[in-house]
């Protein structure tokens, strides 16, 4: 049995590390004034305070720590995710591209099991599509990753992202940026604040809920039937109630969304995945709800360095389900993993 880690985070320690991957002008712009490298850790309510040296920045150390059974680890750059909270569209784009190049250059050579997710800015769908096309052919690319702005995921704003992703057989990973609760720009949380960290932690899955409702009812998943979207960092216990509610809505309101010719729960089961990462989902009894999902729905993510990374949290789910979550579902979701990557050192 093999393990595929669908959520292994990479941290860039210093702006200098990005110098080779930025234009002179942008390096100058980011070096002057207030800009500072984002503090990684886009997990509101995370139980670990990240400090430099704690991990995520050293490819050799990360490689050495990979379990023997691990066959692939999808590297998700942490810091570009927070750019959904930035106002500068081009800055988010430039920063994401620089980090992508950094990861492709410095990480992939450290371990043949590493793959990477192409970070894209959520602000600008066309710029995101350009970035996907720029790196989509890279043998190490396995996914696209972003954290959403306050535009729901089904809308045309993101269609260029999906088109480019599907062209290159890349699944899309959606992940929190960290600012959802408190700044204007990223996907909002429901209700109104101010909130304690506990409340933010509890409400974060709502971003995924709104995304899914939009993707299904706007017909976007129907329009891109090859598209696969994985929600990482949002948990999954909330999914069965949402699926059932969406099915009821569809049955009564089909005339408004006649392009949707099957129940939402079936579309979700086919095209949406949920990352089980140890930081987010260790709720008592969560596994009794897992049985209400399609067997394809859950994929494993270590969430290193923001969580312990161990697979102990899967102990409650039974052998067959565990093996699917650890490997088969990931291979199905991330089709590029099946292609042997020739690492560009």
């Amino acid at each position, binding site marked *: 049995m093999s393990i595929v880690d669908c959520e292994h985070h990479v941290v860039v320690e210093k702006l200098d590390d990005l110098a080779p991957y930025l234009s002179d002008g942008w390096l100058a712009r980011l070096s002057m004034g207030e800009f500072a490298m984002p503090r990684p850790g886009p997990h509101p309510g995370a139980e670990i305070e990240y400090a430099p040296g704690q991990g995520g920045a050293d490819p050799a150390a990360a490689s050495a720590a990979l379990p023997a059974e691990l066959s692939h680890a999808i590297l998700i750059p942490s810091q570009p995710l927070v750019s959904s909270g930035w106002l500068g569209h081009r800055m988010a784009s430039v920063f994401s591209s620089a980090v992508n190049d950094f990861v492709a250059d410095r990480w992939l050579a450290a371990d043949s099991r590493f793959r990477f997710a192409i970070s894209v800015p959520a602000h600008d769908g066309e710029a995101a599509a350009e970035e996907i096309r720029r790196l989509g052919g890279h043998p190490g690319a396995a996914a696209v990753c972003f954290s959403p702005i306050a535009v729901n995921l089904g809308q045309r704003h993101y269609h260029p992202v999906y088109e480019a992703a599907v062209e290159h057989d890349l699944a899309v990973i959606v992940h929190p940026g960290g600012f959802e609760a408190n700044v204007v720009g990223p996907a909002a949380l429901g209700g109104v604040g101010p909130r304690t960290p506990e409340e933010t932690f509890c409400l974060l899955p709502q971003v995924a809920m709104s995304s899914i409702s939009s993707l299904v009812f706007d017909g976007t998943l129907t329009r891109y039937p090859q598209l696969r979207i994985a929600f990482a960092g949002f948990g999954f216990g909330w999914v069965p109630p949402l699926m059932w509610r969406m099915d009821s809505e569809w*049955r*009564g309101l*089909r*005339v408004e969304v*006649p392009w949707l010719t099957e129940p939402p729960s079936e579309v979700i089961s086919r095209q949406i995945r949920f990352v089980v990462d140890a930081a987010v989902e260790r709720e008592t009894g969560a596994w009794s709800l897992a049985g209400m999902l399609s067997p394809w729905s859950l994929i494993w993510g270590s969430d290193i360095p923001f969580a312990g990374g161990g697979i102990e949290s899967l102990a409650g789910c039974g052998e067959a389900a565990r093996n699917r979550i650890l490997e088969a579902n990931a291979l199905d979701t991330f089709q590029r993993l099946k292609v042997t990557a020739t690492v560009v050192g």
Partner: protein
Amino acid sequence: MNASATSAPARHAVGAVDEFPLDEFRIFRLDDRPIGVVRTRQGFFAVRNRCPHQGADICAGKVSGTMVPSKPFDYDYSEETLVLACPWHRWEFELATGKSFGRMTNKRLITYDVEVEGDQVYVAMKKGRA
């Protein structure tokens, strides 16, 4: 007129054609069942006045064509299949067959054959077939 002891299906007279306003159900109690009869542009239909979903008086709903599958945010309204939308949850059932339009449920709305002879309308008391 009640069903006789012979094997011939009973039928009930429910009035004259011009007593039926277009697209509006009239309700009758036939063989102790509430049955709605409606005149449409595609002829007469009769259904059990009970939505298979939660039991609402479905004949108080709306008779019309409906949106058929289309591209996202295009609409294609068609009257090829006439449906009855329940006044509660708006689940649509094909008037001709009782099937759920869009396959919301496997349960069917019970339908009955309607015969028009001259200007008189009759409901046949056997369940309509698909």
